[in-house]
């Protein structure tokens, strides 16, 4: 219940072994929604490999409550658009989106789904937001699993606050706030590795 207390106005009565918590109904509902995102993977391209990596035990986004895949859009809350969407697929994607029941969220996984990437040509849609509204963009070609987890947490953050403005996963170190540091730091310090 620590999370519930931290993100709402709930009060845990002191001096009791069990106690009780008060909260707002919307906050409780959002808290339940953000940790039970049934997902519908719309996987079309190479980003699917990275999607599998994020869903497999090493990174494991089921830790964030986004575990159960539902291959029927009618049962899913979160549409993962993983990969390039061509013009011919656009009506299919829109139909999948329209079949999902409210409330629903969309996550654009990778540069192609976010903006079309380098496929600036006759065949491809320059970002799924041309077709359906999109909540979170995760750029990267493909994005690292950490960026995907950042996107998932960003979406949970948005759900908790009831915010539907588009969110973009920015680099771990925001160049606006820290312009002198490197954009991406892939190297880890040796001290963070387990002893061999």
């Amino acid at each position, binding site marked *: 219940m620590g999370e519930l207390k931290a993100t709402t106005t709930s009060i845990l009565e002191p001096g009791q072994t069990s106690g009780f918590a008060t909260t707002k109904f919307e906050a409780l509902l959002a808290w339940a929604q953000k940790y039970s995102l049934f997902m519908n993977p719309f996987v079309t391209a190479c980003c699917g490999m990275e999607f599998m990596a994020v869903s497999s035990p090493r990174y494991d986004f089921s830790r964030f409550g986004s575990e159960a895949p539902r291959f029927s859009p009618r049962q899913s809350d979160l549409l993962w658009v993983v990969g390039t969407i061509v*013009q011919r697929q656009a009506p299919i994607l829109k139909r999948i989106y329209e079949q999902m029941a409210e409330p629903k969220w969309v996550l654009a996984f990778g540069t192609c789904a*976010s903006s079309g990437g380098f496929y600036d040509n*006759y065949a491809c849609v320059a970002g799924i*937001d041309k*077709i359906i509204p999109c909540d979170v963009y995760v750029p990267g070609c493909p994005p690292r699993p950490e960026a995907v987890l950042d996107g998932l947490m960003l979406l949970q953050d948005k759900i908790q606050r009831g915010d539907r403005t588009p969110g973009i996963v920015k680099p771990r170190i*925001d160049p606006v706030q820290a312009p002198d540091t490197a954009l991406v*730091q892939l190297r880890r*310090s040796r001290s963070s590795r387990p002893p061999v």
Partner: protein
Amino acid sequence: MSVALIELVKINFPDAVLASHSQLGDDTLVLKPESWKAVARFLRDDPRSDMTMLIDLTAVDYPDREPRFEVVAHFYSLSRGHRLRLKAAVGDRDGETVEIETLTDLWGSANWLERECYDLLGVTFTGHPDLRRILLYPEFDGHPLRKDYPAEKIQPLLQYRDEPGIEKVAPFGVDEGMAFGRQTHKYGIAGDEDGPLGPKVITPADN
């Protein structure tokens, strides 16, 4: 090395071969388009060539040439292990009538290859049983791999959403959209002023 194969075709079709070259094992015959199918049939049926496999069939657009398009086919013989490339130039300058005979009744793989070639380059294969678009949608107008197709021209099958600023592509500017969500939380390292993760500086001692 199938230089002998080129000579074989030249002997059997003295009027059909316009040019030939063999460079680094790439043996090529440039044919008259009228004899395209006859030579292909000969290459498949003659036991000395025995071209069992049609590897690829496509076309090239040379907008400054007349005829404008060059149909290219690659053959491979599984029994003899040799390869041959056939070319034939077809089509007028404006690309209205670009026609060549189909190879579908000789190699089954020619069916989809010719459909792709028709779809993207607009080459009409006469006698093809099912010549329609294979990759693009039927509503598409024109042939996108032609050099006169505008590079930035798109033909969306679905109307784009009616939203202000829909023509922009993500990621948007640094001042747009939502700030990085994790930076709104305060569960970072104690004393870290620059955000939850902070600018980690890699020092020589770390390496």
